[in-house]
């Protein structure tokens, strides 16, 4: 399944679809990092609004993506986690530690703007 990745200035926005298989997630991992390299992006926003379930594999993959992207000097923000999904995740101990999160795309962009302002 192709995940749409849009470019907005120095930020890449990847919108995850509802039912991503493990293979899709693996594919994405490399794909996203390659895009960051290609466009010299400073940040990636991963929008998971459409995901109504987040298992431990998906959660680990997101953390790994964030770590790999950080190695390229870029920031990752996960946005759009639904309340029910968040609740289920913390009960399973999947906290996405070390990865920035925001309510939605708007908040995610606002967060990055703040961050870029202070580091510029």
């Amino acid at each position, binding site marked *: 399944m192709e995940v749409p990745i849009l470019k907005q200035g120095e930020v890449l926005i990847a919108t995850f679809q509802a039912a991503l298989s493990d293979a899709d997630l693996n594919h994405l991992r490399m794909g996203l990092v390659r895009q960051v390299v290609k466009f010299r992006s400073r940040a990636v926003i991963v929008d998971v609004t459409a995901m109504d379930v987040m298992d431990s594999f998906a959660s680990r993959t997101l953390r790994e993506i964030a770590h790999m992207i950080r190695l390229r000097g870029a920031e990752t923000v996960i946005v759009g986690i639904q*309340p*029910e999904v968040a*609740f289920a*995740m*913390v009960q399973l101990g999947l906290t*996405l530690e070390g990865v920035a*999160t925001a*309510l*939605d795309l708007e*908040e995610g962009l606002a967060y990055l703007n703040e961050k870029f302002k202070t580091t510029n």
Partner: protein
Amino acid sequence: MSKREGITKDSGTRSNPSVELVRSEAPSELLRELVAHLRQNRTQLREEWVVRITETRLLTAMTKEEIFAEATSVYDSYVEALETEAFEALQAYARNLSERIIPRGVETHEVVGIVLLLRDVLARSLFAKYQTDFKKLNRILDAYEPAANRIANTVAVGFVQERERVIRQQQEAIRELSTPVLQVRERLLILPIIGVIDPQRARQLTEQLLRGIRTNRAKVVVIDITGVAAMDVTVANHLVQTVEASRLLGATVIVTGLSPEIAQTLVTIGVDLGKMNTVGDLQGGIEQAERLLGYKVVTLAESR
């Protein structure tokens, strides 16, 4: 009504008249006879029962008139249940009765007590009636006892079920009243918690808060637990999970008002305090939240 003569003779052995192999009356006939007796002597037996109730000091929360009224309907329902063996009707009656008397402060042991007293009063009247015919008395009791026990059981269970229903209803009401999620500034929510938190309430709290964060687009939440005296390890873990889940929605949580006992619990379960933002009291928490959101509060005098 014909009676079957039921003494069977084993060929070659003398039949023992004290052992009857076949009942001479069908159980339903006996029950009918019994019910007729109970209806005929209704006034007297009911009076006797009410006297016993008062003697045993049951239903003290009710007046004599009320006891009499309820006794009448219970007696009639009792006899009807014996007659029709329709226990669902009896259970419905018991629940209905409970709905009336539970608010009056009548307890389970009182309800069970009066039903058992009625059972005794009726049994005694059967002893009196059939005292000259021991065999018949036994047969009557064979019909009466299982039915009477089932009645006592049905009424007790109906009463308890009603109590449990009321308790559940009240718990639900208390839970709803006690977890408001309040917006006090743009992007700032306050969740004041008061009273006892059990795992179910903790779960409801979390769900409500997460929904509130999304609806109000909150960036900071202050959870105030000044009104919570203590929490066990399970609930403390729930609180930590609430903080983590809120973060996944992009909101920072500040917990305020931890009592010494709760602080001890959190340390004991090894909560990573780096993950939990805490401030002494609600005022401090709101002030910090405002700073995080970029607000600065000045008096009108200062701002001129």
